[in-house]
């Protein structure tokens, strides 16, 4: 299956190892991975702050670029950006032609973990990682795309991993895009509940499906001097940490 990778701007600029891991895992799962260098951002920051003209301009670009990819699927290591692509249609109102194109693109766009399990039917990537990890349900993946069991299944099949459930794994980390800097005190107050749950779980890594949540959680963890490692699902599934050991 030919997959066009939408890495997202955050991953591209701030956390490229997530993109590298996603590409690696997808290829291990038998996909041909292509990457169109014209891609930048889905426009979500503008859309969520109310700037619909700006969001629409970026949405049009996205649609034009990925229509040309002729890939079977568009896969993104972000539930939030995937959900944004699914929202594109709302930006075009009565413009039937563009709405139709937006819907066609949305139908082919998948969140990384959900794509592996639900589209490829793969739930074991031959990964290995030592230690306890916990999963944080990123809000948009969970509530806009209904991704819940897929990442847990994928993680349980990583050799050497013990998956523990966080208290309130499905509650928000407080990021919320511009919310995190418009109301930083509230954002961090919400975040600290998540941090408490992570500390209580005594894990080596906190795993999620969005670089944005992981930067929020990770930024507080390092500020607190915690050793817990924020990790994207793709990074965990690409890990071959215990390769040298015999199982």
């Amino acid at each position: 299956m030919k997959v066009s990778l939408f890495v997202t701007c955050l991953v591209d600029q701030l956390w490229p190892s997530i993109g590298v891991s996603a590409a690696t895992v997808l290829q291990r799962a038998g996909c041909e991975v292509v990457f169109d260098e014209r891609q930048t951002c889905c426009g979500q920051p503008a859309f969520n702050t109310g700037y619909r003209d700006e969001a629409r301009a970026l949405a049009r670009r996205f649609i034009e670029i990925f229509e040309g990819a002729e890939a079977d699927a568009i896969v993104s290591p972000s539930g939030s950006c995937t959900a944004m692509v699914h929202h594109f249609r709302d930006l075009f109102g009565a413009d039937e032609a563009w709405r139709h194109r937006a819907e066609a693109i949305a139908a082919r766009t998948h969140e990384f973990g959900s794509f592996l399990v639900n589209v490829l039917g793969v739930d074991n990537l031959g990964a290995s990682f030592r230690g306890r990890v916990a999963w944080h349900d990123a809000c948009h993946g969970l509530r806009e795309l209904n991704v819940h069991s897929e990442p847990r299944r994928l993680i349980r099949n990583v050799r050497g991993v013990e998956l523990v459930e966080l208290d309130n794994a499905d509650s928000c980390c407080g990021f919320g895009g511009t919310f995190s800097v418009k109301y930083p005190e509230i954002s961090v107050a919400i975040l600290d509940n998540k941090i408490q749950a992570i500390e209580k779980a005594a894990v080596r890594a906190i795993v999620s499906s969005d670089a944005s949540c992981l930067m929020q959680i990770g930024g507080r963890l390092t500020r607190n001097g915690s050793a817990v490692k924020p990790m994207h699902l793709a990074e965990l599934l690409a890990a071959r940490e215990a390769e040298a050991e015999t199982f």
Partner: protein
Amino acid sequence: MNPELPEPAKAYGPAEVFDQNARRALVDPQLRSALRHLAVTFGQKRAQAISSVDDWEGLRERARAIKDQTLAQLDKYLEQFADNAARAGAQIHWAHDGHDVCRLIVQLLQERGATRVVKSKSMATEEIHLNAALEAAGIDTVETDLGEWIIQLARETPSHIVVPAIHKSKRQIAELFVAKLGIAPTDDVDKLTGAARRVLRQRFAEADAGISGVNFGVAETGSVLILENEGNIRLTTSLPKIHIALMGIEKVIPRLADLDVFLKLLPRSGTGQRLTAYQSVITGTRKSAADEGPEEVHIILMDNGRSRMLRNPVTRQSLACIRCGACLNACPVYQQIGGHAYGSVYPGPIGAVITPQLIGIGKASQLPYASSLCGACREVCPVKIDIPELLLHLRAQIAEGTALGQGQVEVPVKRKPLESFVFRLYAWAWSRPTLYEWGGRVLRLLQRPAVRDGRIGKIGGVMGKLMPPLGAWTAWRDARPLAPRSFRELWREGKVPPVSQPADSPRIATR
């Protein structure tokens, strides 16, 4: 004003200073501890209560369909309701806004020489600050719901739609009762409620009129339905000779049979109960002198901004709200700051949506941003209101300035020239991959002095002020610096395996 009573607590400002209010709330340890159990207690009770329903999703969908159908023909159902209620002996009044309602109620009471009033919990009366109007007219009014009475004694406003005194601790309530009722100091809940009961019973016996809200108005019968747990609404609406019910125009439903759906949804969503202790269906006045109930029933149908919400297909869904408060309990923001910070009697996610629509976006322009858009509110809403969609709609109105001059919006929407410029620049530059990539390279150079151990620590002082988002982020969290090489560079350079190297031997299991 009664000179013996102190001024209302002014700890929190109006909605326009939400940011300051929120900061104040976050450092109030008593409030934080009162809120700590809210999510857990109400969340668990709700989850248990909805598990006793076979098809919760189906119920939600039916409820929303009934609301949508009603709102699409609201004029028809309101007239039907008014006709049938009048036929049953109720007197119907139509009110444009809160001032009209306050004037009308004061007039009704004064014409009848009513000076002592008992009230049951009603968000509609809180919305229009009826108590202040009654007090100004010299009408002695007492709230009879225990929570509402507590905040009336404390001269505060409700901080939650269903549990108005949720922000108060038992100790604070005990101290309030000692100060206001002159009881002996105690922290025994039975003694406290006993004291409340003694005072309130006396007030019921003396009352000339009772004022209530309405949960549902049934068009086909002209009945109003009110739900409660304390029995005080039953007394408020049946003991005094006059009953005045204030009903927002969105409260009408077509048929008595529709209550089957809403009675399953509302108590479960609101308090996690399968059913409230009391459900009063009131249809007009008493029919003979031997009957119980008031001699006069007045139903006031209030618009107060609701027809404005009705006009737009996106905002219309705001009127489907049945005031259960489930979205407050589920909201991570509300859980941290409580209700008063919103500067409105409607707090939380639904408050952030309806307050700007009721009082004008210009007076509550921060509220639509007071959300991480996590969607927990939409998930618990018994009538499936897409609150995040509404928040985004309001944000777009502010960003585009399209709310200017609409309807009753008195204060112009403050546009944000800098933010607007930044987003225009972002959309322009990020539509040009070369510019986007070079922008990244320049930022990588600029960030260099700030990066320590692979992270950016606190950016304070002048730099933090020059770049407010970075200052706000790094005050409490480390920032992740731009990576030495972007993904696209790695890809281009063939460093993304297995482009430059053969694929690892696949060890893939399929389902």
